[in-house]
């Protein structure tokens, strides 16, 4: 059973990572980030229940809260990018280089 | 405030005073600079006079109360350091007087005095941290002197000078750190005191640390492969800048070798002496050959400095009494002769803004006094007996021919040295003739050259008198230098 949970975590995390690194769309990348956070949470919550460790469960709660905050900040930035008329593609963000 | 602390604080205070005086106009700054350099020269004499009276073997030391990081404020001066400090203060005075008429800002004088202070610090420090701080501190004033008041491509020369020396010094710093850490490993005490570090057990890292020190000092001497900063820095520096650069700053490297590197690594320096002597001999011959190929007068004198320093190094490496004393004395002599030569090229440059050998000609008619003094210094520089250049070279070479160090006793280093002496005439005389004796070339600028005025003649008389004094009666100078040197390397 233990390995199954780790397999899920691994798959989810690598999917999230792939989305962040490969996708061009900013939104998709944001989703990828959330996916990675969720994957780590799965592993954490599984282990915490096994050991019924309160501190770990508190950690899970913290992680969920932080992931949410992250999403908020991410969305606000993406909205500003949209409003400035440059579309969602990550490709156009190349003013800063060298 | 012990006299030794005064020796390096006085010029620094003078520099600050010059900057303040700069507010009230140029003459105030100049007068303040003159006052502080005279005061500094006076202080040096006050310290040296009783020292010589006491037989020149003593050692004035300042107590080393401990500071943070194992550093302790440890200054000491023996005959050798005092001689070099005397040379520094004298040449600073010469620089101040010789650039009296230049329209320069107060920062010019402040930089020279700061440089003098840092140089005195180097010659006084006995704590390696303080030694290193002063060693690098000399770079900043010289960087600004070359950069702000130099000639055409001064910017490149200033940056090259700073980076080149810094490259050597950074690896020297690593060597010092390794030394201090090794000492801490053995005794559990952090200290930077030169005497204490002699017992640092370095084991396998010993040669590497010694090589780091040699790299740091070698860049400054300069030893041939590490010398390419010198011609640019000397050529682009203002007249007074080249005097200080050639007169004293080149001696920091050799002083560092004698004071720090050799005592710390007695066995290694004995083992590597033949290789270093080979480099020194290469210095002497290579410098002379390069000087023969130059068309710019100042660049020629710069390369001749490389040759002269080769003799000093040869003398020091021979580890014999006369070799050491000869090397030490040659450092002072080179300061005087090359200082005088650079001054005169500076006077020429002030008048005609040209330095090439082909740009002049016929100066013997237009400026007879300049011809006389240039000839006098040039003869001293190529080692005419009876003038100071010969004494140093003769004793150094006699030391090398006499040396007991294996491989060094076979006289081919002496032969190379004497070849260097012979080549000296081959580069100096044709240049002298081209500038002073040859008739005016069509595109020459000799028309703008006027003869020396009283101030310039005064300086050159003082320098020539010193050259003649050392040349004919070097014994009094040797009693100042020799006792302290002998104890160092033995």
């Amino acid at each position, binding site marked *: 059973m233990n390995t199954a949970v780790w397999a899920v975590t691994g798959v989810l995390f690598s999917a999230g*990572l792939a989305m*962040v*690194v*490969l996708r*061009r769309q900013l939104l998709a*990348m944001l989703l990828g980030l959330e996916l990675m956070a969720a994957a780590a949470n799965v592993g954490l919550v599984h282990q915490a229940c096994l050991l019924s460790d309160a501190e770990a469960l508190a950690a899970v709660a913290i992680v969920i809260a932080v992931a949410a905050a992250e999403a908020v900040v991410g969305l606000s930035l993406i909205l500003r990018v949209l409003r400035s008329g440059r579309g969602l593609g*990550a*490709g156009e*963000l*190349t003013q*800063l*280089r*060298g | 405030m012990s006299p030794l602390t005064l020796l390096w604080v006085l010029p620094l205070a003078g520099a600050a005073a010059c900057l303040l005086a700069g507010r009230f106009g140029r003459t105030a700054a100049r007068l303040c600079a003159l006052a502080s350099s005279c005061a500094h020269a006076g202080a040096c004499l006050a310290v040296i006079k009783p020292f010589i009276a006491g037989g020149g073997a003593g050692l004035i030391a300042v107590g080393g109360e401990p500071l943070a990081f194992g550093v302790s404020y440890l200054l000491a001066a023996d005959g050798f350091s005092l001689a070099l400090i005397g040379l520094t203060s004298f040449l600073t005075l010469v620089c101040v007087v010789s650039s009296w008429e230049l329209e320069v800002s107060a920062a010019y004088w402040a930089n020279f005095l700061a440089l003098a202070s840092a140089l005195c610090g180097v010659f006084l420090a006995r704590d390696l941290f303080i030694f290193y701080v002063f060693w690098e501190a000399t770079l900043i004033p010289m960087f600004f002197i070359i950069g702000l008041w130099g000639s055409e491509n001064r910017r490149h020369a200033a940056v*090259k000078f700073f980076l080149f020396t810094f490259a050597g010094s950074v690896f020297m710093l690593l060597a010092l750190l390794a030394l201090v850490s090794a000492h801490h490993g053995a005794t559990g005490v952090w200290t930077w005191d030169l005497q204490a570090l002699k017992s640092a057990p370095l084991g396998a890292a010993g040669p590497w640390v010694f090589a780091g020190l040699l790299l740091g000092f070698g860049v400054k001497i300069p030893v041939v492969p590490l010398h*390419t900063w010198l011609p640019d820095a000397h050529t682009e520096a203002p007249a007074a800048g080249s005097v200080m650069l050639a007169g004293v700053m080149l001696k920091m490297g050799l002083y560092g070798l004698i004071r720090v590197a050799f005592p710390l690594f007695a066995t290694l320096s004995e083992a590597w002496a033949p290789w270093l002597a080979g480099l020194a001999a290469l210095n002497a011959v*290579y410098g002379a*050959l*390069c*000087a*023969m*190929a*130059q068309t710019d007068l100042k660049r020629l004198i710069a*390369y001749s400095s490389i040759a002269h320093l080769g003799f000093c190094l040869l003398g020091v490496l021979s580890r*014999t*009494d*006369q070799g050491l*004393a000869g090397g030490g004395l040659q450092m002072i002599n080179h300061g005087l002769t090359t200082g005088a030569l650079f001054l005169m090229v500076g006077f020429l440059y002030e008048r005609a803004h040209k330095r090439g050998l082909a740009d002049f000609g016929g100066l*013997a008619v237009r400026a007879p006094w300049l011809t006389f003094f240039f000839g006098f210094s040039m*003869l001293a520089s190529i080692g*005419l*007996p*009876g003038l100071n250049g*010969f*004494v140093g070279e*003769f*004793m150094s*070479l*006699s030391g090398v*021919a*006499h040396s007991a160090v294996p491989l060094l006793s076979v*006289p081919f280093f*002496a032969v190379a040295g*004497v*070849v260097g*002496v*012979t080549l000296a*005439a*081959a580069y100096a*005389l*044709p240049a002298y*003739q081209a500038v002073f*004796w*040859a*008739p005016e070339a069509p595109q020459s600028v000799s028309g703008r050259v006027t003869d020396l005025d009283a101030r310039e003649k005064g300086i050159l008389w003082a320098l020539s008198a010193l050259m003649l004094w050392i040349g004919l*009666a*070097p*014994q009094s100078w*040797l009693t100042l230098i*020799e006792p302290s040197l*002998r104890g160092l390397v033995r």
Partner: protein
Amino acid sequence: MTPAQIPVEAWLLFAAPVAAILLGFFVMRPLAPEKTHWPILLSCAVVTAASFALTARVLAGHSFDVNFWRWAGVGKWGVDFGLRVDGPGMAVLSMVSLVGSLIHVYAAGYMKGDPGFSRFFLVFHLFFLAMIGLLTSNNFVQLYLFWELVGVASYLLVGFWFHKESARAAALKAFLVNRVGDFGFLLAVLLILAYYKVAHFHLVYVQVAGGRHEMLGVIGVLLIWAACAKSAQFPLYFWLPDAMEGPTPVSALMHAATMVTAGLFLLVRAWPLIAAVERLPHLVAAIGAVTALGAAVVAGTKKDLKRILAYSTVSHLGLMMLALGLGQVAAALFHLFTHGFFKAALFLCAGNIAHALGRSTAGVDDVGGMRKAMPVTYACFVAAALSLAGVWPLAGFYSKDAILDAAWRRGGGYAAAGLLVCAASAFYIFRMLFLIFHGKRPQQKRGGERPHEAGPAMAVPVVFLALGALAAGCLRHEISNLVLFGLKGLPMGIPGMAGALNLPGQPLLPEFDWVVFALGTGMAALGAACAYCLTMVDAGWDWRWRGGAAERVFESDFGWKIVVDKIAGGVVACARLVGNVLDKAWWDGLIEGLAASTRGLSERLSIFSAGRLNDSLWWMAAGAALLLGRTLR
């Protein structure tokens, strides 16, 4: 003998010239430059008197050698300066001071009106002081000091008329060749100090006599090399003919009588060292013979008067070296003594002639039939010429005969060389005599005024020198005693020195030998006859053979000058290669290139950060993976 007991004349030898020079430089030059020579002539008189007084002391057996001043001393190593007044020194010094003073008087007349008058006299007297110092120093370092000072003085004087390109080149060549010679001398002094621990002559003699012969061969060769440079012997003689660019008094004093003898004097001082190595004397003799013969032959082909005399000087110095090589110290010194007189006289006559024609130097084709115009010069020239050729009662005969006798006794090549040199020297001197004074060729009118006899200031010294050339022979016994005495009765002022050291070889001049007399005079007559036919009888000889291959051979001194030019060119090319190519282009270029390449590297690296977000994240993930991989292994 303590320093306090040094006789006052010895101090005057130095005090007078120094005072005259200082007075001249600081007082006379600014105030009355044209009177600079007054204090200097006075100092010459004082020096001459002092040297004669000292010679009398030495003849009376009171020569001395004492250290009075520690120049530089460190631990066990030390060099002291001192005075050594002994036979060889005084023999040469007496001639030098007398001839020198006369030439100083001559120079006062010759250089009158020259813009550099005061500069000339100051340097001229500095040379005089240096020569005195050289002859009276008692150790190798002090000798080297004055040796170099003499070299510098010759540089300044040969290049006196620095507006002339040829004078500048000649001065530079003279100094550099002397410098090459000094390479040997300095190295020899260093080796002596290193292996014998002391530089003082006598202490070295004692050690050499005591059997220490370390590195003596090398030291001997180096000293000979130095002597060859200064005394213009075979390998390094080529600077002397060009040194004729200097004013005539310079040529007369330095390049005939005094400076060039310094090399020989060095060998005399170092003779115990050289004699201790059995092959070296032969080397000296061989160099002397080759130089004497070669120079005498070339002298016969030269056109310029002073160059003929220059080659003649090289030839006579070769003879002195030959005598020294054969062990005849006294003969060599005596010939040096007489040569000083007649060669200086010849030079001054040549100077007068050139002066009369209003030129600095005259060639053989500019003069002719001057007998009636300049009777005094003619008389002196004849006297000196006969003395040079070695005609019986004159001084030149006695000294040359002694050398010929030694060469004849040694036989073989030396004898042949000696005889041939007699013939050749007679040939070139009589050729000069006939061409200048008896030549039938009509005189070209140049500048209109007829050549007139030189003024009294220039004529009187020539006359005295000519008398010296005639009468110096009778002093031969005094000179040989002087050389002998000088070496025997030498009370040592220096502690730890054994009794006087006898120089190897017979110190006394050989007795009169009829066979040698006949041979010498015969060869001289043969030479004179050839000169007569080739100049007076067949007048065109001097020009017919020129322009052909023969001229190139003689002009380039049998090809030696071409070899020297190649060597000099090689050194300069090597310097330019090292200086410009190796140092500036390659090495400096390498270091500057290193700095530039780091900037270039930064250029190339910046293409990685093209600013795209995904690339950054990709690099981050890859970096983390790399880190993970490295730690999990």
